[in-house]
């Protein structure tokens, strides 16, 4: 009886905390959307100016793109414990998928399906939602191709190889304007513009930020839902077990390669969605944007927020995306104006991120909102250290 009581107390608690988070974030997001859509124009100019400096709608949308990708990386790094330094490769696959299937890039053909763009425009124009799925599948497919040979490696070596892939894939796209006479990626010129998102018969152009915000939020919410569901099931348990002790996991009948590969593929899948979303956010695909720093920033978001905890990762991603896109330039301008200096603050963003990571490792190793389990692991060494110190 005591046991069943205990169990009853435990489960709803977790579920309740997840529900609270979900409801709070949804209300905040809807509030932000309503404010920018309906109230923003009616506010005084000073308020509008303040928002343009400190919290512009485009930054909000971009933050959500980062959230989607960070949640994907969280599955790889946070759940399965595989250090992936090349996540940008999947972001790039997703982006180019959007470039190929929802723009006029392949103008040798004229295929339209569910898209809002005029039928006369050549190129492949598919529905945004279909492109999401295609992008995710392409990225997931390459995740498996890349993962199959590399996931046999142990932690540090895996990180090195993924780092290599993260460099190679964007290079392929950068130099992909003439692959045996075939223009794959339009090279450094990139692919632009991509089609507007069509939803409920509405055509969302580059300036329909509010509606895009809602769509991005919906996709991020889907990612959260998927993450939580997988986490609670058979596969999530196997990932955790592998993160803790690979050998013991395999001795308990967990197929290591297959389970890790699934984590990698699911991560890549979400990276593909994130990449395609990013393409619709910046309204184009530009090869030089897919650089190493994206992989590192994503990893920093996951670590900062709290590996393995979706809510922590969301907070980490929002915070760092804001600092990167708006916070640092805005703080810098304020600083420069106040002290009459000319310091280029945004160019120091990596110094700042690096500093934050070092401080985190020193003082708050579990991240801002740590997962209960992880908290225990990272403090285990403290105990051991103090034990040996005491003897």
């Amino acid at each position, binding site marked *: 009886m*005591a*046991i069943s009581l*205990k*169990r009853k107390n*435990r489960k709803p608690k977790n579920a309740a905390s997840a529900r609270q988070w979900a409801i709070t974030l949804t209300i905040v997001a809807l509030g932000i959307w309503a404010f920018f859509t309906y109230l923003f124009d009616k506010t005084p100019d000073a308020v509008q100016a303040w928002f343009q400096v400190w919290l512009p709608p485009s930054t909000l949308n971009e933050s959500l793109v980062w959230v989607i990708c960070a949640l994907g990386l969280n599955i790889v790094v946070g759940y399965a414990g595989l250090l992936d330094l090349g996540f940008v490769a999947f972001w790039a696959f997703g982006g180019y998928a959007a470039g190929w299937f929802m723009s006029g890039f392949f103008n040798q053909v004229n295929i339209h399906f569910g898209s809002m763009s005029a039928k006369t425009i050549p190129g492949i124009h598919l529905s945004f939602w279909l492109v999401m799925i295609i992008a995710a599948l392409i990225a997931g497919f390459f995740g498996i191709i890349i993962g199959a040979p590399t996931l046999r490696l142990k932690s540090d070596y895996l990180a090195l190889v993924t780092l290599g892939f993260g460099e190679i894939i964007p290079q392929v796209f950068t130099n992909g304007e003439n692959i045996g006479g075939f223009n794959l990626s339009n090279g450094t010129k990139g692919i632009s513009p991509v089609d507007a998102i069509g939803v409920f018969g509405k055509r969302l152009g580059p300036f329909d930020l509010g509606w895009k915000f809602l769509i991005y939020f919906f996709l991020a919410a889907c990612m959260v*839902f*998927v993450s939580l*569901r*997988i986490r*609670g*099931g*058979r*596969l*999530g*348990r*196997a990932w*955790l*077990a592998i993160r*803790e*002790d690979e*050998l*013991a*996991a*395999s*001795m*308990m*009948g*967990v*197929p*290591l390669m297959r389970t890790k590969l*699934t984590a990698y593929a*699911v991560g890549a899948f979400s990276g593909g969605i994130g990449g395609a979303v990013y393409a619709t956010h910046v309204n184009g695909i530009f090869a030089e944007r897919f650089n190493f720093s994206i992989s590192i920033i994503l990893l920093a978001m996951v670590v900062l927020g709290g590996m393995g905890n979706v809510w922590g990762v969301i907070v980490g991603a929002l915070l760092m995306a804001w600092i990167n896109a708006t916070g640092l330039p805005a703080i810098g301008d304020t600083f420069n104006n106040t002290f009459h200096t000319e310091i280029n603050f945004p160019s120091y963003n990596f110094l700042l991120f690096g500093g934050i990571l070092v401080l985190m490792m020193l003082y708050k190793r579990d991240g801002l909102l740590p997962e209960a*389990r*992880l908290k*225990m*692991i990272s403090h*285990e060494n403290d105990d051991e250290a103090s034990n040996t110190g005491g003897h």
Partner: protein
Amino acid sequence: MSSILSAENITVEFGGLVAVNDVSFDIPEKGIVSLIGPNGAGKTTFFNILTGLYKPTSGHVMYDGAEITALVPHKIASAGVARTFQNIRLFGSMTAEENVMVAMHSHLKATLAGTILGLPSQRREEKAAREEARALLEFVGIGKTATEFARNLSYGDQRRLEVARALALRPKVLLLDEPTAGMNPQESSVFVDFVHRIRDEKGISILLIEHDMAVVMKVSERITVLDRGEKIAEGSPAEIKSNPRVIEAYLGKGVGAGH
């Protein structure tokens, strides 16, 4: 009695070092047998061969009528060869219940898509798995710890949890690697009964590596002695106790006279 797991002429070489030399060994169905020998005799290496962690340089491992020598560890485990570890290897940040459920991985059918969609069949399966895990924890006597993190359990409970986790594989053979290490004599004697219960109630064949001679003599139906990678004796506890080669190589004259 037919054997459930048998090793035939196993030799393992690491570089030039011969860790196990031409050892043959049987675990009879529903039997309790022990593997003993001084440190470095090759016991754990032999265990690792049986579970597929190491591959023998020559020889075969047969399980339930089929050869498993070349299989990867997780296939051998899900076929029904379960083990515990000398130095406890639980998933510390998972609850006792989750630890047990990890070992059910190969029995469960949940798919990625099904889990995401939360299909009724998968919910049922998950619920049944949870109940089975609870029952196993009850069986090993730590039912109250189901929702506690494995790391926070006491040493004895951790050892029991390792057994519960191994049993979740629904094994036909259970390999226990020094299960009484760190236990006091009273706990050890409780453990002997526990081993009998596992065999009698679950019908599982058991192989132990054990240093505690009192436990070995009490629990085993047959004992195999390894020394420096070679099998030097095999027989009933009484035979082993009086075998001069064993006394000389392993027990030492003082201990032998003491009994």
